[in-house]
């Protein structure tokens, strides 16, 4: 397909343009990425903690809970997944709270590639709920490029609206940025019209400097979203890591005029936590990102806590976990 080839060429051409080089080499990428301002760990964590003390009450809390629900990528990524469990997840996405049909739907369901067709069918064509598939030998990313691309194409062919790829952390940590760049650019090409989320697995990158560099590298290579984690590695989505990523997309927009989405995934379990993330989105990246086109939560158990809090705000009392339909098959993420 010529259009997708153009996208890949564009990524390299744009990278050359942004870096001001005639040939995109690993040296050029290294110079650029290592020229980004450093991150002071103490200061970054203090800023995240300060944002976490915002007190969101009454009407703003209600608004934030609905927004958070609409931003969830409802996820099941287990070896034990079956079509039945995926249909259960899809049913939950379609009607998150049977006792209150005004409850917004989550943004997407996120599954392994072989479950895309099942999910797509269960959600139907008009639900507005997208299907996201993890690809590229998720979660380790340890496979040949041919396999990664085949994995991606397979999911797209089955109807995935979004692809969540993993970067090669081994290559990144050894300084082989060009390999990471090329892989992202090629997967992006294989995505066609599907939006590409680039999972950096920040728990393996360890330092905030690495998170910042990986974020810029992913955006440069054409990622539509930058995403923290697979959910298989701890720590997953922490607030300071997400803060760094939000600074990256904010600054990328200043540089290029383009918006890139952010998706923290794994470990966000409570409404209180989700609201802290939304506060951080608003105060760091800006309100333009307060939309499920630009910000997502990769989560499974979070939805039910949000529903519990939503009911509490509507009825004035906590109903209890037994009054919230629990069809989410896995407990992780």
């Amino acid at each position, binding site marked *: 397909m010529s259009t997708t080839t153009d996208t890949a060429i564009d990524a390299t051409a744009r990278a050359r343009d942004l870096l001001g080089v005639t040939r995109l080499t690993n040296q050029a990428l290294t110079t650029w990425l290592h020229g980004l*301002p*450093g*991150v*002071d760990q*103490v*200061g*970054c964590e*203090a*800023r995240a903690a300060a944002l976490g*003390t*915002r*007190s*969101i*009450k*009454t*009407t*703003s*809390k209600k*608004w*934030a809970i609905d927004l958070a629900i609409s931003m969830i990528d409802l996820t099941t990524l287990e070896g034990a997944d079956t079509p039945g469990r995926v249909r259960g997840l899809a049913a939950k996405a379609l009607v998150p709270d049977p006792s209150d049909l005004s409850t917004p739907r989550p943004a997407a369901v996120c599954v392994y590639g072989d479950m895309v067709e099942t999910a797509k069918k269960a959600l139907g064509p008009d639900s507005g709920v997208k299907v996201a598939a993890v690809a590229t030998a998720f979660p380790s990313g340890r496979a040949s490029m041919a396999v990664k691309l085949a994995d991606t194409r397979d999911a797209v062919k089955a109807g995935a609206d979004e692809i969540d790829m993993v970067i090669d952390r081994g290559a990144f940590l050894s300084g082989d940025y060009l390999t990471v760049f090329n892989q992202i650019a090629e997967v992006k090409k294989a995505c066609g019209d599907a939006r590409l989320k680039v999972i950096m697995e920040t728990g393996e990158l360890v330092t905030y400097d690495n998170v910042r560099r990986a974020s810029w590298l992913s955006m440069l290579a054409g990622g539509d979203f930058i995403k923290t984690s697979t959910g298989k590695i701890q720590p997953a989505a922490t607030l300071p890591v997400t803060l760094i990523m939000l*600074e990256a997309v904010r600054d990328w927009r200043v540089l290029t005029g383009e918006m890139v989405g952010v998706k923290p995934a794994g470990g966000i379990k409570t409404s209180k936590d989700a609201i802290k993330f*939304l*506060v951080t989105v*608003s*105060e760091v990246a800006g*309100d333009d990102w*307060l939309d499920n086109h630009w910000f997502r939560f990769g989560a499974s158990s979070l939805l039910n806590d949000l529903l519990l809090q939503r009911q509490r705000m509507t009825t004035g009392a906590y109903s209890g976990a037994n009054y919230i339909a629990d069809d989410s098959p896995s407990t992780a993420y």
Partner: protein
Amino acid sequence: MSKFEYAPAPESRAIVDLQTSYGLFINGEFVDGSGDAFKSISPATEEVLAEVSEASEADVDAAVKAARTAYTRVWSKMSGADRGKYLYRIARILQERAREFAVLESLDNGKPIKESRDVDIPLAAAHFFYNAGWADKLDFASLGPNPRPHGVVGQIIPWNFPMLMLAWKIAPALATGNTVVLKPAETTPLTALLFAEVCQQADLPPGVVNIVTGAGTTGQAIVDHTGIDKLAFTGSTGVGKMIARAIAGTRKKATLELGGKAANIVFDDAPIDQAVEGIVNGIFFNQGHVCCAGSRLLVQESIADEVDRRLKRRLETLRVGDPLDKNTDVGAINSRAQLDRIVALTDAGESEGAERWDNGCPLPDKGFWFRPTVFTGVTQTHRIAREEIFGPVLSVLTFRTPQEAVAKANNTPYGLSAGIWTEKGSRILWMADQLKAGVVWANTFNKFDPTSPFGGYKESGYGREGGRHGLEPYVKTGA
């Protein structure tokens, strides 16, 4: 208008049991002052919170006598371990009643509740805990041979951190065996009076702590009183000089913690997002009512525009308003007089040719308010680069080389604090060595800890508070 509007999240003031009027705390009891009563108002609403007695010369004399008696009969005879127990008890009560103190502090001072709740009151308690630990270990604190208390200490504190400054003063004084006559600032007396209740609750022997409220004349009476052995003052350099003159030639010792015009120095290799936070924290923390505020931003010329852009974007998210709202970042200016001074100095900044910018946020109708303000194009000769504004106003200057940064940073009569932002460890050490400032922060700003000494160079005063060094001014040593 932001898409994500934060609904009001006010901390309840019901926890504070305000009386309509307060007396002086002398010899363990509240007594009526013989001077005229004055009003303490909330600077956020101009609401009268309480009437407070003004201590006359005679009242101060009674307080000093009570302190002397308590010193001679009880406190100087008590073992350090027992003094420590009282200090621990006070520290624990402060923690237990932390919310009450925080709400009252925000009401009386105008500072945001998140600050009184997360900084002022926890730190005040920490100072009592820290000094309590020293009370029975003074012989081993390297203070010199045979450390002994001076006797009665007169302490005069400012309005910017009323409760924290009280703790800085009272905790080391009591730990070392002195007794105290303390005067809180006339605009913020209420937490000191609540602290008097804590002294009663802790069964502190009467007269060990005496609180006399009032303005300049009350302070003068303390400074001039012949029964005072040592003075400790935190406040303006002007008043500090008056005190130094008044006690010259007397046997009185003094520590003075005065004004500042700190340079916050940002190099081009700084962690820039955190540096922006540090700039904000340096000058907008506590409405800029901070003696060690980073009121002069020295930014390397090559990144000046970038820092300017990032800083202003950040300042647009600052929330100015009701001090009791948990989401307020910047509260009210403490008094009409202080607001007038800020207005006068910022007007001077404009007329001298600096470029003025503020974040344009809405301000409440009543009370004393000032928008977070940044001046760019400031030069060393501008008044806003030389005089302490003591408000939410940042003056931005640029430099090209580390040497120039040092020269500009030191080109001030003050020398209380400085900040350095760079990823180069060697440069931090070199700069810290060159800067004539009592406190130098590296890649952070406005961080305080009871274990760390605090104090100034030059006209920022003398003596240190906090840490082991903070005990020194409260003891005499030798045979």
